């Protein structure tokens, strides 16, 4: 088996007296889409924040492509190929969609201390950016300020921004939250197209999306991994069904 892109070892985060994540151990293989599911307050977003470095971890280790990144600042992690989207969409609202992606290209290109030259007119930045917009189906909205995009479009834009950084791993924090049925279907299609190019960790409530996309699923409850396995195993695990999935979940195949 190939070396995992991401390996978490006993990760823990505590806010005051409240333990939010505890002894989280899991690994993501290259090219794999690993979904993390769990009820509200299970610590999913905290986990994403710990991995991306927005929150420091109290204990445990984060190995990324074999290197310990537990103590690295977020921008350092990003530079090593760890990209993320946010639960609440996070784009640059005053910038056009194209410029949003172009900034991401620029981040990846790593030469941002250039004080001359019109960045907005650089083919080296705009070319890949436009291509990424194409991939997520936003090419026609390239000139629209990101603040004016619909919710689903912002999600797609975030994806495009992550794409151009050619990440080794993409952390997706509830990309389907707040999107309409139609947009959800479109996003699922986009993600399916991207699958295999890099590893993804998907935190999601929408079980349709999770079971449509995931190669591997971990169930997080009260900050701990309850179970980790293939979608079929998870679906059929009585413990999960009882504790979390219940009867309400409809499965589509």
């Amino acid at each position, binding site marked *: 088996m190939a070396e995992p892109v991401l390996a978490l070892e006993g990760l823990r985060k505590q806010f005051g007296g409240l333990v939010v994540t505890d002894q989280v151990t899991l690994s993501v293989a290259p090219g794999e889409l690993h979904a993390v599911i769990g009820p509200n307050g299970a610590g999913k977003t905290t986990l994403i924040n710990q991995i991306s470095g927005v929150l420091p971890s109290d204990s445990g280790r984060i190995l990324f492509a074999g290197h310990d990144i537990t103590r690295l600042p977020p*921008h350092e992690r990003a530079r090593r190929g760890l990209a993320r989207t946010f639960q609440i969409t996070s784009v*640059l609202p005053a910038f056009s969609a194209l410029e949003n992606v172009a900034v991401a290209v*620029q981040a990846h290109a790593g030469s941002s201390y250039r004080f*001359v030259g019109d960045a907005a007119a650089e083919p080296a930045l705009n070319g890949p950016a436009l291509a990424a917009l194409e991939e997520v189906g936003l090419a026609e*909205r390239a000139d629209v300020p990101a603040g*004016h995009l619909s919710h689903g479009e912002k999600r797609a834009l975030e994806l495009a921004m992550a794409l151009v950084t050619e990440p080794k791993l993409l952390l997706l924090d509830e990309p389907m939250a707040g999107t309409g049925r139609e947009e959800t279907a479109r996003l699922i299609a986009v993600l399916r197209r991207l699958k295999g190019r890099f590893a993804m960790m998907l935190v999601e409530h929408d079980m349709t999306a999770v079971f449509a996309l995931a190669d591997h699923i971990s169930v997080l409850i009260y900050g701990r991994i309850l179970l980790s396995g293939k979608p079929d195993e998870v679906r059929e695990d009585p413990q999960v069904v009882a504790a979390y999935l219940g009867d309400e979940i409809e499965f589509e195949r």
Partner: protein
Amino acid sequence: MTQAVGPVEAAPRTRRSRAAVALPLVLFAALALLPLVTAALSAGYMLDLFVRVMIFAIAALSVDLLIGYAALVTFGQAAFVGLGAYAVGMLGAHEITDLTIALPVALLASGLFALVTGLVCLRTKGVYFIMITLAFGQMAFFTASSLAPYGGDDGLTVHERSTLFGVAVLDRPVVFYYVVLAALLAVYLTCRTLIASRFGRVLRGAKDNALRMTTLGFQVYRFQLVAYVIAGMIAGLAGVLLANATEFVSPAYMSWQRSGELIIMVLLGGLGTLHGAVLGAIAFLLLEEWLATLTEHWKMIFGPLLVLVVVFVRGGLIGIGTALAGAVSRRLRRG
């Protein structure tokens, strides 16, 4: 569908960019022609006034660079102006008057001060940043006030204007005027270029959404620090010119009221447009000059004027212009 949406959404962009090109062109053309007007009216005094205006415009540009493009509301920019001025004054006191020495020293001093204080200030955000820049401004002010060998609180006279390779080029008012205008133009273009560059794009992005920029891999703090140093040096340049214009250097140049006035100029003109800062400096100082000739109590008029500008229009004078232009074009389209 998107075909129809496109042009409508694009329309404000083109209008804005047309104004962004035309307005500064007109502004600078007017400034370039001014000496002809003053010569015709034999109002040489106006040159001095506009020299002062342009120097403050340079300082205001540095403030706009920070507030308007990097979301760094600095309340201590006057300290850098003062540093530049003191470089001229103190070197002058030791009979070093040449710009080839004074200018680099001034820029280095203000840049270094910005670097050191910026390292501390940029740890904080928002109002805390405002106040910590104020704190450093005040420290600079009190330090200058206690410089007894250089006049202390009284300030010191600059006995002769700076020379260039030993030639007293700045002594002729018209030449000095054009030197200041050239400096203003250079600073304006520098800022313009900077903002459009990759570097500037990171700054603007961080203003929009700093967390997003960080997770994209930018170390925002460093970009802001570089911007802070550049702005400090620009303000230092304004100080060099101010010392030459007034032929006097004083701790008063560093007072917090001065820093406040610079912010007001930028806001009055229109934040985040650059030419708004220039326009704001012109409007602020001319208004002050004009109102003061009307009545001793001119601040009773000036104060409410500022309130009205804020309450009823957004985006300062540039905002008024845009709103007017919008209303006119709507009227035209309808009629």
